[in-house]
């Protein structure tokens, strides 16, 4: 196992390196000049002093060759320094650390909602295959997938305000400042993201369970007189859970990168909102730092999911 983990960790290096080259290149190809944008802010017609412009480019290191800029960035990463935001001058790591707990909390809450509701509902639908319950659940799951998250979010805001004179709290309250106020704010985006996850996971659980329930070992377990509860939990679900886990891992990875739409809609200062602002301002260092973070999250979650396979199915050995 330890050899496998070490090999996977080594294989992650070229993936991460490739990602850094890709995002560094893409950000430079995109039109726009961060120095000009800082100087002109929201008034593109504002007069730009050429001396100030040249000075700012020099300060930001934008006048150096691209290879030098890239090497400097990678060198910084190896020293644990992601650089400073070109726009706000704050350390990128600091910006990410400020936003990370928020996106992390939303992602975990959404994943919990998705797993705790999606998996049992999928199991039930598989057991009651072709019943009204199954049809109903599949219909609801299809609706959950068809309704875009931003639309559900807008409906929560509009219906709440128009009919109940209510809107979610604004301004972020950290969990240590009050669990109630924190949950009151974050439950809504988590729930909206969770709805899509419930739909996906319940459908996947159902189809996976249907496949497993027809396997010989399940029939054998039933023939041995094991209770149905144990058949499901110990034999069927554990085996059916592998694809569900893969999907849940990917969803968690996406959510950890920050739910851009939800964070924008509910004005939650997470990673998604940071990404949007940074991309808009061509804040290269922040975008690069965020993408690097997302690559790391995805590769580590993939590794964890792969390792979990062997726990779920002892036949899998590394």
């Amino acid at each position, binding site marked *: 196992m330890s050899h496998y983990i070490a090999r996977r960790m080594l294989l992650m290096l070229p993936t991460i390196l490739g990602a850094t080259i890709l995002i560094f290149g893409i950000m430079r190809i995109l039109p726009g*000049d961060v120095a000009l944008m800082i100087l002109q802010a929201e008034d593109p017609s504002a007069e730009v002093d050429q001396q100030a412009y040249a000075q700012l480019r020099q300060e930001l290191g934008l006048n150096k060759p691209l290879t030098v800029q890239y090497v400097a960035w990678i060198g910084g990463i190896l020293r644990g320094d992601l650089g400073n935001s070109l726009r706000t001058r704050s350390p990128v790591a600091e910006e990410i650390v400020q936003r990370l707990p928020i996106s992390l909390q939303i992602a975990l809450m959404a994943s919990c909602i998705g797993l705790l509701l999606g998996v049992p509902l999928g199991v039930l639908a598989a057991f009651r295959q072709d019943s009204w319950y199954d049809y109903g659940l599949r219909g609801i799951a299809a609706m959950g997938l068809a309704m875009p998250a931003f639309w559900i979010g807008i409906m929560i805001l509009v219906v709440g305000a128009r009919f109940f004179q209510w809107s979610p709290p604004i301004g972020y309250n950290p969990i240590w400042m009050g669990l109630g106020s924190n949950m009151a704010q974050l439950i809504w985006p988590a729930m909206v993201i969770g709805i899509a996850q419930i739909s996906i996971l319940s459908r996947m659980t159902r189809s996976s369970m249907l496949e497993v329930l027809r396997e010989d070992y399940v029939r054998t377990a039933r023939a041995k007189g094991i209770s149905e509860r144990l058949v499901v939990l110990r034999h069927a679900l554990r085996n059916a859970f592998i694809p569900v886990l893969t999907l849940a891992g990917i969803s968690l990875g996406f959510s950890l990168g920050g739910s851009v739409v939800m964070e924008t809609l509910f004005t939650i200062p997470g990673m998604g909102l940071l990404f949007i602002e940074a991309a808009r301002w061509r804040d290269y260092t922040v975008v690069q730092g965020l993408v690097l973070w997302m690559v790391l999250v995805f590769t580590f979650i993939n590794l964890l999911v792969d390792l979990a396979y062997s726990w779920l199915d002892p036949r899998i050995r590394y």
Partner: protein
Amino acid sequence: MSRQRMTRRDFLQLATVAAAAGSLSPTAAGAAQPAALTPKKGGVYVIGRARTPSFFDIDFLTSVFDIQINAVFYSGLLRLDQQGEVQNDLAAKWDWSSDGLKLNFQLVPGVRFHDGSPLTSEDVAWSLNKMMGKVQGHGKSGRMGLLANYITGVTTEGPLGITLQLGQARPPVVVKLLATDFAGITKKGTTRDMLAKAPAGCGPFVMKELVKGSHLLAERNPNYHRPGLPYLDGIKFMIVGDEAGWIALSTGKLDMFTTASSLRPDMRTTLEKAGMIVHLYASDNANYLIFNLTRDTPFKDKRVRQAVNLSFDRDAYRQAVQYGQTKLGTLWPQDTPVWGHSEAELRKMPGFRVPKDADLAEAKKLMAEAGHANGFDTTMEVPNEADMVRSTEWIALELRKIGIRAAVRVVPSQEWDIFLAREKKFTFCMDSYTMVTDDPDEKILGYLTSTAPRNNMGYSNPQFDALAQRMSRETDQAKRVQLIRQMEKILDDEMPRALVYERVRPFAFQPYVQNTLPPFPKTTVYARNRMDETWLNK
């Protein structure tokens, strides 16, 4: 001091006229809040703002969102009062020299910056030089850099005396610029990096907490130089997007909210039903259709430009694209005190007439005279911004009425400024003109003369330039108005740009909020956001 004072009665009459003109909301008159109420101290004012400020460099900012937060941390030499009159702020007194070529200020003694250090004339001189781009390590202010056109030098006299040397006698715009929020005084020697993290002013509020993307908390400055002010204990700026902001206001989670985009009628109804005071105000931002006169296109012919001006229906545009919330205007929005025209006057001008038939017939005739009876194909460029694209597509459709078949070309927003201002690659497009004060110098010398830094059209007319210089030097307001009218006639004839609309900004607040708005329509949104006289009647 030769200043034209506007009495309170004059101001109220103007506000009434503006309200009656139709585009102000019925509740807008309510914005002229009861003067008899005695201000109450205390409370935290919760304001919604679109985004966390990019930085805290008061004069270097250009965005309305940034200035509306930053203004509370700074004080300037001068300020505007609730009637829009220039008053002393950090200046205990000020006067012109007898020849009008010097502007002398004496500072209020004992003022301290938020970090406790004393304010001196050196700080003021340094700040003014910084605004004009004369301080190493700082750029020229996008808004206040205009001062460099008038101020030739800044000298200090002792710890409290400052003198501005001027290139021309008594330029009115200098005083007006110094009374805007952008003219806040920064502690001498503050670096750009320091201002990226925190303000360095001596304004009514001190920054207490900043959670990026969430909120910014400002507390009352106990050492504020204006006695008894501010009334509020603090201000909490909540960072919130457009839709969520209006909803939060309607459900009582905000005391005040404003955005740069139009307010949807259904949202306005929701707000008014919830008891909010809704105020729609125009003055600082006009959107013109500009023609690139440096390129050889059919628009080189002024008859074609005149035809374009005549062809599109601004009233239909207002309803179809901007929820009925724009204003008409030429150089200023209709009903702007002193410089503006009334709607009745505008309706007699080509391009504004109702019904549109006469304008359209004249436009077709001009096109035929210019040799384009069958029209022509062209390109109309637009930055990739939803509101601009919607407007441009609408205008392109309207131009088909006179045979101009304009293909809309969308340019990435980040490329737009280079495309428009530097490389001048456009054929014709919409361009935004912003005003910080109500002084004509800003627009005429900033956008329209042949040397104007933002003259993206490449327009050049020596007669116009000469009039502009005369107007800028003229201190008699009536004579300035006459000169402006002459320049308007030239512009209407040569039509280097045609007004599409004057932006109307929505402001809405809870009925208990007092003294929160800048004195519209006498100034723009860039003045009087310090909130030191704002209070909560609850």
